[in-house]
């Protein structure tokens, strides 16, 4: 049985075509965005794989009861979000971070970046940007991290994020604003931005530690 937060509220708009999709179709469409979402949330490839598996097991279990009251994307992302927040609650006393996504990029033959999605130049730039931004993202509370990742990396609109996180639109706007404000502060303190010879944005850590303040 799904946790109650993963059941869908009554909404005027129904997505009945979504309700007739097979699990295999849903997996094909959502495996990649959900895996990347969970990787960005956890910054740990092994954990992201486990949480992706848990997400799709819950999708499989919940699919017979899914009636399209929310869009399929909202429903699947809501499950993934709950899975990740459950993970962080379980791990709340653990502060270690074993591996992070960009360590995986350098060492793992599977889970390689998609050449169509990320060019070698982009990956090089990602490595250069990684320390400042990854550390910042990791310092955010998980529900702020979810809002920021869903919007700026998964491409969701504020209204969709409100449905996924089961919060008001104003709450989404507040979380996004605060997370971005902190990101900008952290990068301003901790990084010197520049465009390199490829015209790619890169950063050099400065003497400041880039800690995110409240």
């Amino acid at each position, binding site marked *: 049985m799904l946790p109650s937060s993963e059941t869908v509220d009554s909404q005027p708009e129904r997505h009945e075509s979504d309700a007739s999709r097979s*699990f295999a179709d849903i*997996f094909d469409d959502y*495996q*990649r965005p959900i*895996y*990347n979402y969970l*990787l*960005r949330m956890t910054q740990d490839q092994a954990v992201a*794989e486990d949480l*992706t*598996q848990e997400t*799709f*097991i819950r999708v*499989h*279990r919940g699919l017979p009861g899914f009636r399209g009251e929310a869009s399929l994307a909202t429903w699947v992302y809501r499950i993934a979000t709950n899975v990740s927040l459950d993970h962080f609650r379980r791990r709340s006393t653990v502060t270690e971070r074993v591996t992070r*996504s*960009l360590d995986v*990029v350098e060492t*793992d033959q*599977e*889970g*390689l*970046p*998609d050449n169509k*999605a*990320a060019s070698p130049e*982009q*990956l090089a*730039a*990602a490595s250069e*940007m*990684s320390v*400042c*931004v*990854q550390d910042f*993202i990791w310092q955010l509370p998980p529900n702020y991290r979810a809002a*920021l*990742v869903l*919007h*700026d*990396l998964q491409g969701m*609109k*504020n209204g969709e994020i409100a449905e996924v996180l089961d919060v008001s639109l104003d709450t989404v*706007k507040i979380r*996004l*604003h605060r997370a*971005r404000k902190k*990101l*900008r502060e952290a*990068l301003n303190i901790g990084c010197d*931005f520049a465009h390199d010879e490829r015209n*790619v*944005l890169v*950063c050099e850590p400065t003497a400041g530690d880039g800690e995110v303040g409240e």
Partner: protein
Amino acid sequence: MNCADCQKSLNLYLDDELEPQHLAEIEEHLADCPDCRREAESWQRCRNALQQTFPDLTVPSRLWRKIQTAVKTLD
């Protein structure tokens, strides 16, 4: 529109979440105000940094096999 109002709405502007009337007012102000343009560029730079840091990765093929196996045990 003044600078304070413009800067309060810059993230919604960059998110493409503004109503047409508000959007037009912001664009008009940005066209005339270098300070607010710099502020918009600063927010945009943060988004670019975020997107550069987390490129889209392919899913390990072993994951699908693991999920198939897990799902079969539920059927």
